[in-house]
């Protein structure tokens, strides 16, 4: 991190004062605000995870040591939600990455109406997640939804997209792919545009085909962006909440219950605050470990992505 030395360094008092004032008035309030609302609560959550606290009792939290953590290890509902969420995160991120890059390669060439096409393709990523749940709830309806209607034209179905335990996760996955492929497309597109034209000219002179150019030049040159995009997208996917909550409520049974839904229910439906705290701590530790591994795997011989 480079330190910008904008203010002259002479120790004359007005300037020193100005610096102090700047730190005090500009930085301190915001920092205190963040610590109060975003950082201290995390420590409180960690403390909470060592207590038993049922909101329906009037007693405060009572310290129970590691009991919550021991329970978690045998909690099938939690473990299956965690496994499901990890599987979802990896699958969704991978598919969205491949699709996003493919679309970016396709769209980044010049053609008429490109601005419109780009805007249309980016639209899903800014829409309200709860509304996206509504959109796909309607589309996936078993008897009158357009998805099953399209399938019936091909002589297939009807599929119980939101009612069958086998298909409901797929429905949520499709929804997420629709929602977030634009994010991958956006990042890949920005990175591709940053590649100097001379590189392509040189490749064309050497007689490289378009496929060769994409594989040998474009992809390696946007590698860093891809690595960052994977981290950002998977973090978000891991927290998936609104869409399955609206579409299926986590069901049928537990088929689409993500970790976030499980934690939400534990805390705000069953009111087991201490136990929910332990779930949060476990998920964050797992996530942090996975990213540490990922960083080590990808950071070989290059500086860490921003």
């Amino acid at each position, binding site marked *: 991190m480079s330190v910008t030395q904008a203010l002259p360094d002479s120790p004359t008092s007005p300037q020193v004062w100005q610096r102090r004032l700047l730190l005090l008035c500009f930085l301190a309030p915001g920092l205190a605000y*963040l610590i109060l609302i975003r950082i201290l609560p995390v420590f409180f959550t960690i403390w909470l995870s060592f207590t038993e606290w049922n909101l329906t009792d009037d007693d405060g939290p009572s310290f129970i040591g590691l009991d919550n953590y021991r329970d978690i290890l045998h909690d099938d509902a939690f473990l299956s939600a965690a496994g499901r969420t990890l599987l979802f995160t990896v699958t969704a991120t991978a598919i969205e990455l491949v699709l996003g890059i493919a679309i970016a390669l396709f769209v980044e060439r010049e053609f008429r109406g490109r601005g419109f096409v780009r805007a249309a393709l980016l639209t899903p990523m800014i829409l309200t997640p709860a509304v996206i749940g509504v959109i796909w709830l309607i589309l996936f309806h078993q008897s009158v939804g357009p998805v099953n209607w399209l399938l019936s034209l091909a002589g297939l179905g009807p599929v119980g997209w939101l009612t069958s335990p086998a298909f409901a996760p797929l429905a949520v996955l499709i929804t997420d792919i629709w929602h977030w492929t634009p994010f991958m497309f956006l990042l890949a597109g920005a990175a591709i545009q940053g590649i100097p034209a001379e590189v392509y000219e040189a490749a064309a002179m050497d007689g490289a085909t378009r496929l060769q150019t994409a594989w040998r030049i474009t992809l390696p040159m946007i590698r860093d962006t891809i690595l960052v995009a994977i981290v950002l997208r998977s973090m978000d996917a891991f927290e998936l*909440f609104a869409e399955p909550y609206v579409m299926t409520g986590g069901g049928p049974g537990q088929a689409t219950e993500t970790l976030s839904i499980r934690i939400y229910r534990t805390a705000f439906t069953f009111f087991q605050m201490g136990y929910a705290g332990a779930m949060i701590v476990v998920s964050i530790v797992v996530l942090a470990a996975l990213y540490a591994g990922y960083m080590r795997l990808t950071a070989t011989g290059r500086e860490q992505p921003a």
Partner: protein
Amino acid sequence: MNTSRFSQALSTIGGVALVLCSIFPVTYMILTSLKPDRLLLADPPRFLFTPVLDNYVKLLIDGKFSLYYLNSFIVAVSATAIGVLVGSMMAFAFERVPFRGKGFAFFLILVPRSFPPVTTIIPIFFVVRALGMVDQLITLILFEAAVRLPLVVWLMRGFLRKVPDELIEAAMLDGCGLMRIFFRIVLPLAVPGIAAVTILSFIDTWNAFLVPLILTNLKAITAPVAILSYMEADQQLQWGIVAAGGTLTILPILLFAALLRRYLVQGLTDGAVK
């Protein structure tokens, strides 16, 4: 030349298919919101019909949804204003003053960016309950503003770096106060950056779901959470109303995005990779 024309036709078809895939789902919800009752459950689904506003009338007639809608506006605008103002000031201090512990302070700002809201919501819920502030707009505003801060600082730092040092030094020599310098000189020069972070914060706050779901129950409900209550109310015939609510909910975002497309794309890209 035939192959090139063939591949061009292929690209066109591919492009049209892509655009259709991406906008058809939204379009279908909007169509659903305009359907008369008897067509809502038509099999096969209808795409052409005379649109009616019945669903909107039903949604808005008791005045509740408009209240929730207004809540959404108040929360998104206020949280964005607080977040952008406080965040820009922090970014300015970071850019202009060398001080001990800078790295650590920056770390404190950026770490929360990777915490999902669920990690902090339980303690917040307790404090809010203890203070009797459940179901109040101000609670939502303060929390959402804090959630937006890290991204604002992160993005504004990049934009403020482009403001030339000489300008600020000259103003200081002229005896300008810091507040004046910040509001009269620095901010006007960073307008594109402010536009980008403002629209981004607005959209993120407007779209928030989990936090409003937990911190509100009657009065302070926002539009995305309100939709849910219409869904639970009855069964399939509510579709039209839910679709109308969904359409109204995404309307400001679509308008905002259409008007400020350039800033939005810039903000989204920088927010991710800068």
